[in-house]
Every structure is written in structure tokens, then in C-alpha cells.
């Protein structure tokens, strides 16, 4: 996505400012772990303040400063993650505020109004060079539109009547009349701004669960430390010292994950928008990580664009030219690429330079009849469509038609039957080409445990050939729109989460039914409304990226939590021996100082400093996410457990030791 950063200095200033604002206890309370750190900081400050003149005051203040830094690193990471989104939002907002619209009134005149005042149902005129003021549908005119502001794709896109246009994109040529389909504040651009800004960010279900777990863990450590004070007094009054106990508490609490949890969520949503997908909620992104089944349309997703007509195969007794002519007529009103490819082939076969002009009543394609055609003005009715549909139509079925059709289908082609006045003429061979690189992606899905199902209106044999070629796990052939919904429901009742991509209006119910519905930006408004994500590049395999981001989000949370807890072991070995050095009976505990830290005070500071520094050190992982590879759960568990669990135990031993030695150099040990 195009991103423009204002001067770096002011950007940093914004981050700094917001990170300090977030230290407000009223805001901090949403993060239980850091809220306890804040209380601890206050307690230590108060102790240091009220004990002015006592010898250890300098030490208490040092602890207070490190505690403050621990807290501030947390708000800083959150502000940093937000700022990355805000830079995008600011750019988009500038695009929006500067837009004016030519509002079309009932007399056909136009008035110049602010884009923000447009309502659903308004009609606007767009001239070349204008930014399209709001989301809408083209009513009249054909023009090329530059959508780079939204999609980052520089090649202009041709928009014709019934195509959807997006506010913020620019008309390059010709003139369009557009009916506005969104009310102020609800346009695509508005939604995108809200999304990248994180303004409407709500905690996702998993984030809530983890926050609850962290809160209870914090409570346990509060209990451990608070009860330790009276228990240690068994060995004499004031065995423990409050600032040091606060330091122990903060070291033990899961501050690492507590500090980075919200940055992880914000950054996850940013990564989604960086792959040019608009997710309507964080919940949807999280759900994407859990997907078990993906339903993909064959056309446009698995195969390149559309099928091309490559051959006319007439029935015995029918001339090639007769079939070509019928094909030509029946496709004149057909604006699909398939239709155009038939016209092209027919022209070449018949030796025409330009197609004849339309005379007659076109019969549009419907998913129910699965055919289209034309009723010519001379009364003859020409139909083309699925073989089974044409077979039902013709008065005297001819076995040869099925034979030819099967031959085409077994070759991976799609047979399109043509009839004239109820008499079958022959078959047009349409050929599919599977996109390159798809088999790889499907293999990755399979490794993640995700089943891919191809849905196609084609017959079984054709579907099977393409399915085999593309490497999908399963397919449904001769699928009507409701078949897709049935399939989704069936998968869902068996407990699976289903994702699907779609672009047509007839996909809308299925998109809505699916747990994750990724609508193509090139698709109809209905589809975009029904899905819970929109792919601005209209590339259906984008689903893989979204699934990966969803999984990455969970892995990052799990990894940092595990790391946070694993770190505590080393901290105990640093602090517990240092805690009771004043008690003669407990002096033997110094044997637990396996890191050989120089002094008790130095040991506690080292652990606390390590605890604080880990937060900024892990920010890159929180922002980018822990690396994700498509592999089985068992393998992934072992790898992540080693990286974050085992290393999480080892690293702090080394880190605390190193910090202790550095403090020693400065005489602070």
C-alpha cells in the first residue's frame, strides 16, 4: 500500500507523546499485568521518597527508574505499532478530504458538492482526472480507472456499467455516471482508515482469553510475593525490603507478553492491510488461522481468467460454418471473456473482419438454466450452454453430442453445446489453463492441515481433470450457487471452519455463510458487503497470506508468553539467593547463586534490567510476527518450543550474568 510518512521527527514526537499518555492509570487498567507494574512503581517511588536520608535511597530510586522504563517500553511498543498504521490512515484521509463531487440533479445539471455529503442513491458525474468521490456502481459509460491509491496496482482497470467503483480512485479517461452506494462514514475508504488506525480495535476472543490467563498468573505472583513478606519475618523482623520485593514481583510477572500483547494485535492487523486485504474485524483474521477447509472457485482462482474457445466440433451432418455462425450469434450479447473468445474464433473461422450487429432478443445466462443465447428477429432461437442443459432442450437427443462432449471433457476442456431451434449443432471446446505456482500453494495448505475444495459449474470429468492438474484435495462439479452453501453448512456442522473467496453477487450468501469470506475488490458490491474481508488486488490465493497472518498472530502470542514464563527460572536463581543474605540461618541459600553474580543488590538490579530490556528486544518479533512455516502441528510445536521455551530458560541466565558484569564495570554491582 502506498504509504507516505511525514517528517520523521514529528512522527517520533507523536509516538512519544501517545506512549506517555498511555501511562495514565485509567488507560493502563485494561492491561492487568502492566497495571500492577504501575502500582509497584508508585509504591517504590513512595518508599524512596518517604525514606529520604536513609542509606539505600539511591538504590530504591534506581529500582523505581527501571520499573518506570519497563512500563514505558510497553506503552512505547503499542504506540509504535499504532503509528505505523496511522501513517497509512493519514495518507488516506488526505485523499478523502480533498475530494469534490459533481452531483447530478433530476434535470441533468450538476452541482459541485463535498464528497463527505454524498448519500446512498445520489448520482454523480465523474470526468477524466476526477477522484471518484464515493463508492458506487457505474450506471453509464465505460472508462479506465486508476485504483493505485487503494490497491497499489498501477495498471488502470476498465469499468463498464454495473461495475463497482471505489471512492478515492481516479478516472483516467472518458466519462462515467455513478450511483453512490455508501453513506458518509461508511465508505470503503472510511472503513480502511478506521481499520489501519486501530481506532475501532476490539480485543479478539483469543486475546481476551490470554489476557485472562495473564491476569491470573499475575495474581499468583502477587500472592507469592506478598505472603513471602510475613513468612520471611519468621527469621526476624523486616527480613525483606519492600522495593526489593516489588522488583521480585515485576521480574516474575509475565511482563514481556503483557507489555507486547496489544502491539502484537495492532501489528497483525497492519500486516493484513500490507498484503492489501481489508479485514472488517480482528476476529476474522484470527478465525482465518483456524480454517480447516477452503472453497475456491475454479474460474478466475484456479484457472487463468476464463476459458477460451479453441475449436468448433460440429455433429455429423452439420457444417463447421453453421456451428460457428450459431456460436457467433449466441455470443453477440455475451460480454464475458468466454463469449468474446467464441466471437473471435467464429470470426476467424468464417473469415469476417468485424462481428455483425445485434438483431434480436438476447437471453442472458442464469445459474438455474445454465445457458444463454438469443432469439433472432427472424424467429430462430439459438442457445449455448452446459451439455446437460442443451440435451434437455433439444427435441431429438443425439448420442453423438454426449460422445463429443465427453471427449472434450476427458481432455480437460469444457464442452459448450450449441443448439438452434431445438436442434443440437455441436460442441464448442473451451479450454482452461491452470495458473502457475498454484500447486505449490495448495501443497502448503495441505501441510497446514487445510483441505482445498474446488467449486465449479463444469461437469465431473472436466472438474476432475482441472482438480488433478491444480492439486486440490476435492471438488464439487456442476455446482449451483446453493450447492456452495450446502457444502459450507455441511463442513460447518462437522465442526470445520470454512473459508471461501468469491466475487459475484450469487456468491454473496455463501460468503456470508462462510466463517471467513474473502471478497474480491473487483467483485460486486453485494459480495463485498457479505464477506468479512476484501482483497484489494482481487487475487483469490491471497487467502493463504491471511491464513498465515492469523496463525502467526496466535504463534507470536504463545511464543512470547512461553518465553516470558520460561525467563522466570533464571530470575529466581538471581534473586532468591540475594533476598535473604542478611539472615544467618539462610546464608546457605547463596549456593543457589549459580550465576556467581557479584553482589546481592547487583543481582536484583541485573534481573530487573534484563526484564525491562527484553521488551524492546522483542518488539521486532511482536511487529513482524514470529516466523511461520507451513508444516505439521507436531513439527511446529517442537521448533517453537525450542526457540521460545528452551532458549527462554537459557537466554536470561546469560543476559543477567552479562548485565551483572557490566554493572560491575561501573562500580554499581
Amino acid at each position, binding site marked *: 500500500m502506498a504509504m507516505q510518512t511525514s517528517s520523521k521527527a514529528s512522527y517520533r514526537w507523536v509516538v512519544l507523546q501517545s506512549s506517555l499518555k498511555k501511562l495514565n492509570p485509567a488507560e493502563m487498567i485494561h492491561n492487568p499485568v502492566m497495571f500492577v507494574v504501575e502500582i509497584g512503581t508508585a509504591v517504590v517511588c513512595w518508599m524512596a521518597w518517604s525514606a529520604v536520608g536513609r542509606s539505600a535511597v539511591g538504590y530504591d530510586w534506581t529500582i523505581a527508574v527501571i520499573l518506570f522504563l519497563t512500563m514505558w517500553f510497553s506503552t512505547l511498543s503499542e504506540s509504535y505499532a499504532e503509528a505505523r498504521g496511522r501513517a497509512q490512515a493519514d495518507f488516506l484521509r488526505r485523499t478523502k478530504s480533498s475530494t469534490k463531487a459533481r452531483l447530478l440533479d433530476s434535470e441533468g445539471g450538476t452541482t459541485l458538492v463535498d464528497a463527505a455529503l454524498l448519500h446512498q442513491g445520489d448520482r454523480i458525474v465523474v470526468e477524466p482526472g476526477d477522484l471518484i468521490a464515493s463508492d458506487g456502481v457505474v450506471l453509464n459509460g465505460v472508462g479506465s480507472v486508476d485504483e493505485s491509491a487503494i490497491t497499489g496496482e498501477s495498471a488502470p482497470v476498465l469499468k463498464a456499467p454495473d461495475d463497482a467503483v471505489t471512492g478515492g480512485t481516479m478516472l483516467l479517461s472518458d466519462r462515467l455516471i455513478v450511483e453512490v452506494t455508501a453513506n458518509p462514514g461508511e465508505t470503503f475508504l472510511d472503513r480502511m482508515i478506521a481499520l489501519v488506525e486501530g481506532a475501532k480495535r476490539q480485543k479478539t476472543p483469543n486475546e481476551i482469553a490470554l489476557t485472562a490467563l495473564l491476569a*491470573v498468573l499475575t495474581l499468583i505472583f502477587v500472592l507469592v510475593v506478598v505472603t513471602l513478606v510475613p513468612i520471611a519475618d519468621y527469621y526476624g523482623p523486616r527480613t525483606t525490603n519492600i522495593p526489593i520485593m516489588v522488583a521480585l514481583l515485576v521480574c516474575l510477572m509475565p511482563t514481556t507478553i503483557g507489555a507486547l500483547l496489544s502491539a502484537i494485535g495492532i501489528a497483525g492487523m497492519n500486516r493484513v492491510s500490507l498484503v492489501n486485504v481489508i479485514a472488517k474485524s480482528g476476529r476474522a483474521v484470527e478465525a482465518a488461522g483456524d480454517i480447516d477447509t477452503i472453497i475456491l472457485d475454479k474460474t478466475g482462482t484456479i484457472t487463468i481468467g476464463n476459458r477460451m474457445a479453441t475449436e468448433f466440433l460440429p455433429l455429423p451432418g452439420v457444417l463447421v460454418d453453421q456451428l460457428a455462425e450459431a456460436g457467433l450469434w449466441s455470443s453477440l450479447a455475451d460480454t464475458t471473456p468466454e463469449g468474446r473468445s467464441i466471437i473471435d474464433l467464429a470470426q476467424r473461422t468464417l473469415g469476417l473482419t468485424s462481428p455483425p450487429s445485434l438483431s434480436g432478443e438476447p437471453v442472458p445466462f442464469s445459474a438455474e438454466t445454465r445457458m444463454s443465447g438469443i432469439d433472432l428477429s427472424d424467429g430462430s432461437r439459438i442457445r449455448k450452454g452446459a451439455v446437460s442443459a442443451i440435451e434437455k432442450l433439444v427435441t431429438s437427443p443425439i448420442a453423438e453430442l454426449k460422445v463429443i462432449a465427453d471427449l472434450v471433457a476427458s481432455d480437460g476442456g469444457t464442452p459448450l453445446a450449441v443448439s438452434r431451434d431445438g436442434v443440437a449443432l455441436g460442441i464448442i471446446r473451451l479450454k482452461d489453463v491452470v495458473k502457475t505456482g498454484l500447486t505449490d500453494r495448495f501443497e502448503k495448505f495441505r501441510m497446514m492441515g487445510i483441505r482445498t475444495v474446488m467449486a465449479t459449474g463444469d461437469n465431473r470429468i472436466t472438474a476432475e481433470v482441472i482438480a488433478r492438474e491444480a492439486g486440490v484435495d476435492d471438488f464439487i462439479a456442476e455446482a449451483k450457487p446453493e450447492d456452495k452453501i450446502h457444502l459450507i453448512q455441511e463442513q460447518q456442522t462437522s465442526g470445520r471452519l470454512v473459508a471461501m473467496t468469491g466475487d459475484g453477487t450469487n456468491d454473496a450468501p455463501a460468503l456470508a455463510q462462510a466463517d471467513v469470506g474473502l471478497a474480491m475488490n473487483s467483485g460486486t458490491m453485494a459480495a463485498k458487503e457479505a464477506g468479512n474481508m476484501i482483497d484489494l488486488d482481487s487475487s483469490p490465493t491471497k487467502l493463504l497470506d491471511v491464513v498465515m497472518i492469523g496463525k502467526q498472530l496466535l504463534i507470536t502470542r504463545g511464543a512470547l508468553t*512461553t518465553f516470558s514464563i520460561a525467563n522466570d527460572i533464571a530470575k529466581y536463581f538471581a534473586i532468591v539467593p540475594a533476598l535473604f543474605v542478611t539472615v544467618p540461618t539462610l546464608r546457605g541459600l547463596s549456593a543457589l547463586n549459580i550465576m556467581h553474580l557479584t553482589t546481592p543488590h547487583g543481582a536484583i538490579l541485573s534481573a530487573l534490567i534484563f526484564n525491562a530490556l527484553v521488551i524492546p528486544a522483542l518488539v521486532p518479533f511482536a511487529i513482524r510476527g514470529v516466523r511461520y512455516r507451513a508444516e505439521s502441528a507436531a513439527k511446529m510445536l517442537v521448533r517453537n518450543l525450542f526457540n521460545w521455551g528452551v532458549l527462554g530458560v537459557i537466554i536470561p541466565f546469560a543476559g543477567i550474568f552479562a548485565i551483572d558484569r557490566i554493572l560491575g564495570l561501573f562500580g554499581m554491582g
Partner: protein
Amino acid sequence: MSIQTMVTWIVVLGGLAAVAKPLGIYIVRVFTFQPTWLDRPLDRLEDRLFQCMGIDRDSNMSAKEYSFSLLLTNLAWMLAAYLALRWQYHLPFNPEHLRDLKPTLAFNTAASFVTNTDWQAYSGATTMSYFSQFAVLSYLQFVAPAAGGAVGIAFLRSISGRQLGNFFVDLTLMVTRLLLPLAVIGTVLLVAQGVPETLKAYLHVHTITGLRQWIPRGPIASFESIEHLGQDGGGYFAANSASPLENPTAFSNLIEILSMGLLPLGFFYAFGAMTGKRRFAWTLIGVAGTFFIGMLALVYFPELAGNPLVNSLGLHGMVNMVGKEIRLGLGGTSLFETSSMAFATGSVVSAHDSYLPLSTLSFYLGMFLNVVFGGQGVGILNMLMFVILTTFLMGLMVGRTPEFLGKKIEAREVSIAALAFLIHPALILIGSAIAVATPLGQAGIFNPGPQGLSEIFYAFASAAANNGSALAGLKAALPFYEVILGVVAVIGRYASMIAMLFIGQSLLTKRSIPESQGTLRADTPVFAVVLLGSIVVLNALTFFPIMALAPIAEQYLMLAHHLIR
């Protein structure tokens, strides 16, 4: 290690592993109302009972109703027990004319026996009449574990997609189908070993040295049998199974160890048989078994190496036999104590106070974890609570919303499980802090230095874990301890049980997700290692500081040849 010890250990551990499966399957058959061979003699009796109670064998309760029935029933038992102990003098079967119990002791004893803790702040032979022993305490020793087992069954039903069932039906079947038949066999075996079973008065005898002595007796064998089968652990006498009248021979020792382990292991396997995840059950048995063997080694080897202070005097090769019965030996004693701590029984064959500090860590381990098979029903509940917490973190690490048996673990389940985990350390830590910080608590401390502190930790751990054994220096017969330990035992018993019932009900209503390549499998060695690690880390983080202050500090003192006086 002697051959005899090794053979004993292998026979007992192998025996327990072997009975887990058949017993687990039997438990599932009973509670899913499939035919079993005891139907014939018992069906009519039970039907009559259910008729009297006005309930239907296959009626169901919600988690709320089930918990309510559990609490109400237990409260009723506790009240009845309290009153019976308070009026003992006027009740029948009291040939020794033993007096009424004072209120705090009666409360402590009632609370402790109804919660399957069986902490005893009294000496049985001089405090309890025959009526109190068999009609109050022995009765509670049947129904208390039965209630725990019933909750375990209800939870297992809920996670295997069944309704929770009816508490009263489960409670009845626990007694009629499991505890009573097994207790009859146990009693007969113990009587055969010479354990008394009588209602006659204590024996007054002239010894060969010409002195007069009275020898206490009573319905000991039946008491002893259920005490172990139910992981109750309350002894007939103060010396518990160390007394030759309760546990006379090496064979009776084995019988008692095996009876403690039967039902906890059976319930672990029943989890697998009920849910159809038998490999998962074996994984959990493996994890708990590893802990068990670790505990056994941690008791046995330090004691075998002897007291460092004694060793430093040049007396090498002295096994630490202080407070242990020579007739049972170190091997038999270690195995009994490990079992008693692992299965949350709390009966003893030796004086825990005389163990080396390192060995007591093993006892603590059993009480802190509470998952090394634990009590029947509740042990598997605690283990599954850890499984849920572990699966949550590990599930995240494989990039999916965590699942437990195909059900999503979300905020509700995680919060309840985490709170259920929290209760146990909270009771131990807060209780100990109160005892250490107040004069009332300090008054009970007997030994100086770390051992005295350890006695307090031990008492609270024992009450919270419903174990019942003691590091006996502490003067537990003080009203302060009688009340606070009774309260701790009650909260420790019911809070986590009820929490788990609600988790079960919440999981029951969720959609089941089929397994795929992306699912984290829980029945693998990798998961076993991770589960073991999480249990160790979570508990170490919670209890390391207090352990450092008492047994660990004491161990270092001994190594430094310091004597505490």
C-alpha cells in the same frame, strides 16, 4: 538398593499399571450404565435406594445443580459428624467411656473427614469411641471419596459429549459398585494378616515382665481397608499404619499400598475409556507415573545416604532409619510414603518429621502438584486442569485457537482453569502467612529454625491438598489450627471440583472440531514432556520461595554441618 526393595517396587508399580485398564473399563461400564457382573446382586438394592431418594437412574443435572447437590450433601454429612462427635459420650458403643470432643476439634475432624483429608488433631485410641470410629469416621471414609469420584465421573461424562449425570446416582454407585465390594476384599485380606476386627473392649493384659498393660483394639481391619481404598488416610490409631495393629506385615503393607493406588489409576484410565482417547490416558498415566518414580527416588536415596551430620562424625553407611519401622525397611517405607503422598491418602508408616529435608521435598511435591494420580476422581480432574492450561499455551504455538478433545478453549475455560489452579497455592501461601505472622499460629511451632517453618507449610499443604499427613512437630491440637486447617481443607476440596464441573459443562455445549494435520495432538511423547515441564515450571514458580526458606535452607545448613537448636 537391595534386590528385595527392587522386586517390591516393580511388583507394586507393575501391579498398579496392570489393573488401571480393567478397572478403568469397569468404572466406565458402571457409570455409562452398561451391564456388569455386579448388576444381579445390586440392581434391586440400588433401585430401592433410588426409589427412596425419589430419583431416576438416568436423570441429569446441570453443573450448577450437581455442585449444589455436592455441597449440600457434604454440608449435611459434616453437620451430622460434628454433632455425633460432640455427643459421643452419650452415644452407644463406647465401652471405654471416652468423652465428648470439644467444638473446634469436632469441627476440624468433621471438616477433615468429609473433605477426604483425614487430618487428625487427636489420638484415636484415647479420643474416639467405637461408634465414632465406625459410624462417623468410617462412614465418611466411604462417602467422601465417593463424592470426589462422582464429580470426576461427571466431568469425564461432560468432556466425552455426555450429560453430567445425577450426583446422587453417581454417589450411590461409587459406594455400591466400587468402594464396598473392594473394601470387603481388603478387610478379609487384612484380617488374614492379623489385623483386629472386633467391637469388644480394649484388652487388659499382664505382661511377662509382670506389668499391666491395655491393648486397644476395635473394628480396625474394616477401617484400615476403606482408609486406603478411599485415599482417606485417617488412621485408627495416632501412629496410623506404623502401628503393628493396623499394618502388621510386609504383605499387609503391600495390600495397603495397592488399595490406595487402585482407584486413582482406574480413574486415569477411565478418562481414556470414556472419551475414546486411550492413548491420551496412557500419556497422562506416563506423566503422573514419571512424577511418582521421581518422588520415590527423592525419598529413598537421601535416606539411604544417611544424615550428613551423622556422616560427618565418621559413621558412614548409616541409613537414616529414625522414625521408621524396621519390619518394613527403607524400601517398603519409601514406597508406602510416596504412594500415600502421591494418592493424597496421608496415612503414614513412619514419622515424616524425622525425614531429611531433601526427602520431605518429595512429600511436598506430592501435595503441591496434586496430580500424581491424586485422590480418586479429583486427581484426574487436577491433571486435566493442567492439560487445559498447557494445551492453551501450546495450541497457540502451533497457530490455532487451542483445542482440548476437539473443543475450543476460550476465555471462559482458561479463566476458570487458571483460577482453579490459583486456589491451591493461595490456600497454602495465605494460610502459612497468617500462621507465621500471628501469635496464635506461632504458638504451635515446636521445632526451631527451618524445620519449624516447614511444619507450618506442611500442615497447610496437607489440608489444601486433602492429604491429611503431618510433619508432626506442629502442635495441631490448638483451636487456631483446628479451625483454619478445617476451613482450608473445605475450600481446597470443593472450589476446584466445582470449577472443573463448570468447564466441563461449557465444553459440552461447544461444537466439536475434527482433527487434522494442523491439530496439536495430545497423545504423543512430545506433549507428555511439555505437560510435565509446564506442571513443574508452574509449581516451581509458585512454591520455590517458601521451599527455599524451609527444607532447602535446612538442607544447606546440614551440609554446612550446622545444628539448629
